[in-house]
């Protein structure tokens, strides 16, 4: 059985919940209270992940940390279509990886501003916000040109990839850190598309989309 060490309000845990749901993978969740109790910094959890970070995924003997790594594992192991993480195609695989790294930068900036404002973590919220805007500008530009080429997703895949899943949560939660998305119309359209992927589930702070056409 797969076990996800999970905190419901964490965007990083949400990435994993999203992919598990989209791939229809049965799993158990083990709740770790990130805030205010900071269970992830306590001994019991440090024994599972010495970095003291959520999420962690256990699948049999395998214990994995880092949401991007977990997405890579789940897609490679369980996605029979091979579309979510296109192992067969080096160039496409590389663009997926590139945007996985970008997702991590979004977590640090947009996610950081949310932690500072919502959960009172000692981070420089203004610095996080300006970095997030810099990244959002890059992504919006990218997605605008993707749309022109009839590409719906962040990487050059024909269907959604784990890069979309990795970028989505902290973009959707950015307003909690005071980062408006009004200047990023292509990002806003892409978030609607992600919400319409079969198997999509919301999290507190993220509303589902209505039906597409």
């Amino acid at each position: 059985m797969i076990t996800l060490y999970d905190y419901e309000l964490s965007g990083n845990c949400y990435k994993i919940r999203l992919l598990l749901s989209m791939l229809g993978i049965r799993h158990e969740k083990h709740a770790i209270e990130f805030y205010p109790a900071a269970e992830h910094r306590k001994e019991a959890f440090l024994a599972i992940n010495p970095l003291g970070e959520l999420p962690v995924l256990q699948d049999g003997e395998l214990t994995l940390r880092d949401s991007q790594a977990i997405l890579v594992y789940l897609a490679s192991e369980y996605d029979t279509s091979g579309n979510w993480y296109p192992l067969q195609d080096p160039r496409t695989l590389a663009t997926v990886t590139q945007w996985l790294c970008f997702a991590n930068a979004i977590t640090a900036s947009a996610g950081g501003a949310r932690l500072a404002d919502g959960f009172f973590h000692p981070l420089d919220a203004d610095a996080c916000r300006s970095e997030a805007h810099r990244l959002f500008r890059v992504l919006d530009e990218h997605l605008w040109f993707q749309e022109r080429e009839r590409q719906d997703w962040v990487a050059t895949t024909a269907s959604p990839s784990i890069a979309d899943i990795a970028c989505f949560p902290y973009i959707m939660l950015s307003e909690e850190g005071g980062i408006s998305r009004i200047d990023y119309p292509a990002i806003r359209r892409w978030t609607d598309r992600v919400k319409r992927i079969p198997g999509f589930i919301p999290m507190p702070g993220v509303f589902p989309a209505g039906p597409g056409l």
Partner: protein
Amino acid sequence: MSTPCSDPVALGLWHPLAAIEDIPPSSDQHTRLLGQALRYRKDAGNQVAVFDGDRPLPVTQAYGYVWTCLGTPARPLFDLPEYAEPDRRNVCAATVGVRVSAPRAVENFLDMGHFPFVHTGILGVEPHTEVREYQVELNEDKDEILATECIFYQPQAAAGASGGIMADYIYRVPHPYCSVLYKSCPTDESRLDVIALFLQPVDEETVRAHALVSVIDTQSSDLDIRLFQQTIFSQDKPILENQLPKRLPLDPRAETPIRADKVAIVYRRWLRAKGLQYGVIPAAA
């Protein structure tokens, strides 16, 4: 947004700062209240002292939280007698920052109509959207608002609930920035669960929302209770942060109430009568 507060009503109120159990002992902590930076510190005996610069401020420790007042307290903190009942589980659920005024957050707390749309599958679910007629009164002696006979269909009314019920609610607003609700207890029909929302106005358009859950529930762990409440609060957050304007407009013609909003109408009128300024857009004279 951090001009110091000059509203005598807000300055004379008790305001919550933090859950006492969350304060690390013997180290200075910092927060903001009504645009003012404050420092507080808990000693080894769990006594909390609050300072504005070097000036010590009045302190009340109640309902799991530390409260202070920037001016002269107009009256003691409101009563919450259930907190002292021996068989209750009193849980401080979390303190979260929200970009909204305190009165908007209170109104949201008093609102049942949003349950199916915002707390989908938990506190409500479509098509069960009806808000039935309920009673509201302003108790002049206690100077608090009471809404009774509130009923709403809930698929999962609390952490310890299994299956849908018609939940009964009673709402109290004993303080301009605090509200308490009493609702059917899924595990004991003769009792009511209590959920209180205490808002700390950081500035006019930002709050720290503090939640107290006081329930009759021998099954759920503290963790379950806290996580349930955190989920509910976090579902409200994107709504509250997308309300325009962020301060609550007291002009009756700013928004369109329906019968379900009776309690909000009384609340706005009550704030108007108090002459409260902080966190609201006063009605034109």
